[in-house]
Every structure is written in structure tokens, then in C-alpha cells.
């Protein structure tokens, strides 16, 4: 198990070993867990905003095909 360090110890250790403070910081691990949990909640509730829909993918495909076909006919 990772021994507990004070913030000052952690920073000193970072300076000497070159690791980022975040690697060892319990607060940082909690922060990572918090952020992951937020995304898990959004995912579970299907609350992602501005997701790509079938309309987006269709539009993208049509745009690509039209540009390729039109410039192929015009230029090649």
C-alpha cells in the first residue's frame, strides 16, 4: 500500500523523483474518481448533450460523397 505523505513531502518527492504530484496525491485520486463518476452518471441517465445523431452521420456521408463525386467528374 502506498505510504501516506504530507503535501510538502509529496512535492519534495516530486522534485527529486520527477513524478508529478498528481501521481501520488490522494486528493488527486479522489478528483479522478469524481470526474469518472460524473461521466458514469451522465452515461447512465443518457444525458450527453450535443451527441452526433443519425442525421449528423447521414449529412457527413452525403457531403463527402457529393464533394468526391462532383470534383471527380469535374476534375478527373
Amino acid at each position, binding site marked *: 500500500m502506498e505510504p501516506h505523505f504530507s503535501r510538502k513531502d509529496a512535492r519534495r518527492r516530486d522534485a527529486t523523483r520527477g*513524478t508529478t504530484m*498528481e501521481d501520488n496525491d490522494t*486528493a488527486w485520486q479522489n*478528483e479522478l474518481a469524481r470526474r*469518472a463518476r460524473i*461521466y458514469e452518471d451522465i452515461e447512465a441517465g443518457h444525458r450527453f448533450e450535443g451527441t452526433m445523431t443519425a442525421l*449528423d452521420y447521414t449529412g457527413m456521408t452525403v*457531403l463527402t460523397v457529393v464533394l468526391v463525386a462532383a*470534383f471527380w467528374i469535374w*476534375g478527373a
Partner: protein
Amino acid sequence: MTDHVARGGLSAAEIEREDAARHSAAAERGDAPLLPSERLWGFWEFTYANSALAIATWAFLIGGAIGLFVGPKEGIAAIVIGNIVGVVLTSLATTCMSGRYGVEQFIALRSQFGYNGSRVVYVLAVVLLTMGWLAVLAMMFGRSIDGLMALSAGEAANPTGVKMVIAAIGAILVTWFIVAKGPTSIKFFNMVVSPALVILMGVMLYLILSQRSFSELLALPALDPPFEDNTLNFIVAVEVNLAAGFSWWPYIGNLARLTKNERTAFWPNILGIFGAAALGEIVGLLAAVSLGESDPTIWMTKIAGPVIGIIALLFVAFANMTSMANILYTSIVGLRQVGTASVRRIPWGTVLFLFCLIPLGLVVFYPQMYDGFFIFLVWTSALNSALAGIGIVDYFFLRGQKLDMRSLHGPQQNGPYRFWGGFNPIGLLALAVGCIVYVVIFNPQTLASLPAFKYLTASIPACVAAGAVHYVLTRLFARGRGWGQYP
């Protein structure tokens, strides 16, 4: 004052605020996923940022190279076709997941290649690409300075002479110095250079069109077509542009994570990167073909005369330095993200200098690289097109657009993205297959190709082959072994 003493005087609320700010800054650097509330770019902000990245001096170089293979009409068609396909596939592979989860691109890549495999991909795709571009842009700087001195003295330029080499070495060393000082100076240069490059393109286009009509320009022949078969020349031009489109793979995912959502992460690439890069390339193509010279540092002096020519060359030299600083900074920041503790221990200035050694060597010992730079660009597509295929298949078809933030950012040694000693052999094999398919169909070094190249290009089969191998082998072997947390 030590940090300990400083924090001793803070209240609990202030310490909490300080920690929150520190965590946000770390998330911005890519250590954690950015939350939707922390992401600032909407559609137009991302479009502007994308355009600024795409409008760079390399657009003139690529446009000029297209003029070697085909005339302006076929060239414009090749630019549009190659870029739209390359940019759309690259955006699908990188920006959708970054826009949805705010995740750093190479951390997300752990789900495709394993936590050590993503490091290998980083070195192959980012480090090698950046080293090559640094050398090419430094030589372009050197040629601008050489042309400038020749114009001032009324002599003929010597683009491969000693002056060019010395100026190119100087450009790399100055870039190293600027980046070693930190990102603030780079930001300032970006704000000046991108709009100024748009103006320069406008002036160049005006000068070209004032000499010949558009219909006259379209009827001009190619400068140096390598094959008698015009269709083959056209497909090579399309392939160079596909390579240009796929070459955004290492960069746009990490920009897209700053956007508000998936849609604003995807669509601005079409307007910003595709639109801006195509515009710059078309200016480079028209200038090269109308003046009979593919090198922008030479055609600029021909088209604009001595006074505007000197200003344009000075500006191109300056703009090159900015592009060099941008890509060097991005690469080294990423290198420290994916690097081991021993890499992170190397001081910032030293790691930058070590990184610059290979571009310095290329400038001194291989200056011919500049004239065949499109060969280097096309080589990168062997890798980038395969990476795009694997990315699309993994995220959309194997994972159903779901990534596990907890596993991606947690300890990796015993996590689900450990695969096999930190490497996903399936992803890496698929990458190798994609590269091999590319080189078998079209050899970038010799331009030798199979008959299928004329109908399929090389990037598209490489992209499809890599994706197919990754899909089939993952379905067959990964789930049974518990690799990669596939649903």
C-alpha cells in the same frame, strides 16, 4: 517563501479553491477528463482554432507539390477529394470520443493499444512526424532567407547552399529557445501569424489572377508529371492530399476535447481544417503552376517583385518559425504525458534540445528532403490511415461509443487496458497490417503501385484493412481473454 508556509496562512475554503484550480489545470493538461462545464469552445471558437492550425506555410508546399503531378483543374479536384475524405475519417477516429468525454487523445488510445502500446503509437505518429516537419519547415525558412539575401543583393538564389543550411540550423535553435521559454510567446505569435497568412494568401491569389484569367489558369499543364498515364498522376495527387488530411490525426483529438460536446468537436473540422487547408493548397497550386516553380520561396519572389517579395519571404520565414514552435511544443508536452518517470525527469530545455538533434541532422546531411517532402508526407499516411481505421472500428463498432473514464485514468498495471504487458497485440498487429497493405499497394519512396491503386488509392485500403483486422481479431480473441473491457 515556501509553499508550506504559504498554505499555512490559508483558510480551509481557500485551500479547497486552490486544489480545485490545480485539478482543473491538471485536467486541462490532459491528466484527467475535462468535465462538460469546463469546456469552453463552441462551434465558431473551434472553427477558428482549427483554421489557425490549418493555415500554415506547409499548405503552400503541399499545393506546389500537387502542381508537379497534375494541372490546376485536376489539382483542385484532388485537393478537395483527398482532404475531405482524410479529414472526415480522421475526425471520426479522434474527435468524437474526445468531444464526448473530454479525454486526452493518447489516454483514450490506451483502450485501443494498451497503456504501453499507446506510447509506441505516440512515438511513431507524433515524434517522427514532428521531427520530419521540423526539418522541412527549417529548410523552408533557410530558403526564404537565402532568397531574401539574393533578392537584396540582386544575385541568383542558391536554395541548397551553405547559407540555407546555416539559416535552417539557426531556425531550429531559435525555435528551441522560444519553446524552452514557455508557451506564452507561442500564443502571441499565433494570434498574429494566422490572420496575416490569410491576408498573404489573398494578396497572392489577387496577383496570380491579375496575370492570367481563371480559365487560362485551369488549362495550364502539370510541372513535372511522373507518369504518362494521367489517371495515375491524378490518383497520386489524390493520395498526397489524403495523406495531408490524415496527417491531422495526432493533433485534432486534443483540440476537440476543449469543445462543449460531440457535435461541436466534429463539424468545425470540415469548415476549419478542410476549408482552410484546401484554400491554402489551392493558392500554392495555382502559383506554382502559373509560375513554373513548385517551391513557394522561389515563386513568391517571381510573382510579387522584389519589394513585396522581400516582405512575403520575411513573413514566410517568421510564420515557419511559429509553426515549428507549435508542433515542437505540442510534441514535447505529449511526450511528457506518455513518457516514463525517467523521461519526465529530464529538464524541459534539455529534452527539447535532444528532440531537435535529429531535425538538425536532417538539415545538414539530407537537405534533399525538402524537394521530396511529399514523399515523407505520404509515408506518414501509411501509419495515420491505419490508425484512423482502428480508431473508428474500436470506438464505434466494438465499444458502442462508450469509454470507461475510471479505467483509462486509474492505475494501469492491473487495469483492463493492460492487455498483454501493457500492449494490445491485436491493435498493434492491425496497425502493422494497415501499413503493409499501404506500402504493397503504393510505395511512397518509388511511387511504384499495383493496378488497384488507380481505383482504390492506398490510404483507403490501409484504413479498411487495419479496421477489419482489428475488428475480427478483437471479436475472436480479446473478449475471451478479458482484454480491454470490450462489451
